[in-house]
């Protein structure tokens, strides 16, 4: 008979392989970083050979790519999009703005650290990060997925109260459906 644990292991390996090599990206083009995506996807750097491909809507997407600073207004939409994505889902913070605010560090209406509001799996630093850096970010994400360590959605579910508190702190009129996963 097939050992239940072992068969689960094999299934996990296959699933992780598939998740790793098929990343459908919802590029949330905020700020200036969005301009780095066309060269990443087109013939010079060709991210499709890693299985990275654009997705049209959050329902189909695996990776949320946040390409720059987030104003508090935009943050609300980004959270909405993140919550509409299906598990397993990953977030890539792109550029120094998502890490520490970058050149907007003392702005009154942008957020500084993205991972206070949603779980970020990979940060790509630089201002701007070049397509090579983006590709290496994707490669790093693939390694994390292979190891089964990219579990942002689980983290979000477990620490939902903390995230919600932070989100409501900066977003004045909070009118969103409940997140009940």
């Amino acid at each position, binding site marked *: 008979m097939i050992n239940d644990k072992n068969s689960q292991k094999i299934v996990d390996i296959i699933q992780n392989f598939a998740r790793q090599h098929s990343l459908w990206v919802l590029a949330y083009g905020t700020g200036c970083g969005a301009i780095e995506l066309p060269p990443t996807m087109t013939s010079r750097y060709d991210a499709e050979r890693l299985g990275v491909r654009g997705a049209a*809507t*959050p*329902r189909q997407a695996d990776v949320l790519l946040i390409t720059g600073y987030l104003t508090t207004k935009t943050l*609300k*939409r*980004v959270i*909405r*999009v993140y919550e*509409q994505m299906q*598990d397993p889902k990953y977030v890539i913070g792109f550029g120094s703005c998502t890490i520490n605010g970058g050149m907007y560090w003392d702005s009154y209406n942008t957020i500084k650290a993205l991972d206070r509001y949603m779980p970020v799996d990979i940060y790509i630093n630089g201002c701007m990060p070049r397509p090579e850096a983006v590709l290496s970010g994707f490669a790093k994400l693939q390694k994390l997925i292979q190891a089964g360590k990219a579990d942002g959605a689980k983290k979000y579910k477990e620490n939902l109260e903390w995230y919600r508190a932070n989100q409501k702190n900066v977003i004045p009129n909070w*009118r*969103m*459906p409940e997140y*009940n*996963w």
Partner: protein
Amino acid sequence: MNMIYILFTLMFGGAILTFLAHKVSGLLRDTLFVLTVLASTVLFYTKIHTGDTVDFSISGLSLQWGINAYGRIFSMIVLGLGVMASFYSVSYMKGKERLGYFYFNFLISLMSMMGILMSHDLVSFFIFWEMMTWSSYFIVIYNGKNVQRSGINYIIFSALGAYAMLMAIVMVYAHTQSLMIPDMMQAFPFFPAAYKIWLPILFLTAFTVKAAMMPLHVWAPDAYADSPMAYTSVFSGALSKMGIYGMIMVFVTMVNYLPDDTWFRETIAWLGAITAIMATLWAIAQDDARKLLAWSSVAQLGYIITGVAVGTPLAMLSALFLSVMHALFKATLFMAVGAIEKQTGTTKFTEVTGLIRKMPWTFISSLLAIIGLAGIPPLGGFVGKWMLYESLINSNHYILVIAIFFASTSAFLYCYKFLFGFFLGQEEKEWEHVKEAPALMVLPMIIMATLLLVFGVFPGIVLKPIDLGMQTLGYSTTAGTFWSMSGLFNEWGNQIMMRPLAYAIGGTFLFFLIILTVKGFKETRYVTTKDISSSGEVPLEHENLTFSEGFYQPFLRAVCPVMKRRMMTYYQGFGQGMEAFFDYLRRVYSGNGQTYAIYVIVFVVILLLFKNSLFG
């Protein structure tokens, strides 16, 4: 007393009693109404057999009533729909005014349709035909809205048809000295040549008005849309079929004996096809469900007319089968619109959306009816369409089959619009209170939708009586050559078996539905229609994002050149021209005595001039 007398006495007496009972109590009136329809249906099917006749004479005219197998096909439609619609209308018409008037006319029109099917002589045929026209006219104007347009149009075109028929009847009587339809049929091959051409044209004018064939269809969309939905299901399902009933008789007994009938058949078949195409395009453009279904009725009758005109046994089978199916699905759809109208108060696609969770049974029955209407297997509509296409291809109507196919492909557009407009789309707060329609309204719809499915998988159930009827018309039996219980064959010997295909469709659907449901059952959530991926925005309560305005604009832009011409504008032009002409003619009454004196002198001079040729 003969059972046929009893049937008519029952229906007519029931109508009058219902009318009187309205003054006494509502419950008594409703009970009497339903009982009359039920009792006459039971009586017809238990006591009256094929071939029963009854002779009588009024002031020297010998008349005959009776039923043959051909009439029985249509009596199936009339009485079946009558029973369904009577239950429906009791619930639908609750709380409306002048119900005695409505029920009286409803019963009279049912009775007159049975009378048309049972009259074997031209006089009672004509009388029942007129009764049918008038009783339906009274219901068309019952709502009191748009009377000028819908009511007057309807009665004018019906009158045109009736005069044509009366003329034809007089011609027949003048020639044969008999009013019996069988006598006319036997004598027709020996009629003079001019009679042979004019008689079918005159009769067809009368019948195509009821069957709403172009160019005599102008009354139909308005009349269907403006009468109460409880009656429209009968109006479009059964009453228009009386036109088909007459047309088939004309084609079988008259057109067959024309010296050269090809051009005649081709003309009518093409008129039917053009009706189907144009009415389909107009149905796509409508924003009101009643108008959409009304145009779609005209289009569906166009297919049937084409089948009748082509006239091969397979085409005739398909026309009769489609008649039964059209009665089923169109009645269901009109009833669904009625249910929605009753529950929400509107029938516009732009106003009401997202009813699927509030009116699930209405949705399911209209879904089945729409699948039947679109002709998608394994429902009944497909069987009829299949036979129509095969008969057209087998009888070398190559371009005609393309035209019919275009109409039925475009029909998917309005089919989807109907379902989407009412039932799908975002659910709005405005319609949150809407409940499912009462059981009396839902049950008839579900029964008819189920029948559609049964007849699609086992078309033999309906084809058997149709085959008997066609044998009465002089066709040889088609059982076994064109159809079996669940199989269909064409003239080249190709076959299609509905049962295994239905099993395959059902089995595949269930299998994948189970996979979809079981896989990750606990991780699958229902989310509201406000929770959609619209650029990260959350639509507010009052924001309705449903797409319903200008639904098929690109398609209509593509076909706009053909839709610029409307038959109605030609009729209006004709009317204006006549008005101007008579306005000019009116001026002979100048009011001046001297002018009148000149007229008298001119008249006398003319008399003198032509004295010899006129009186000599």
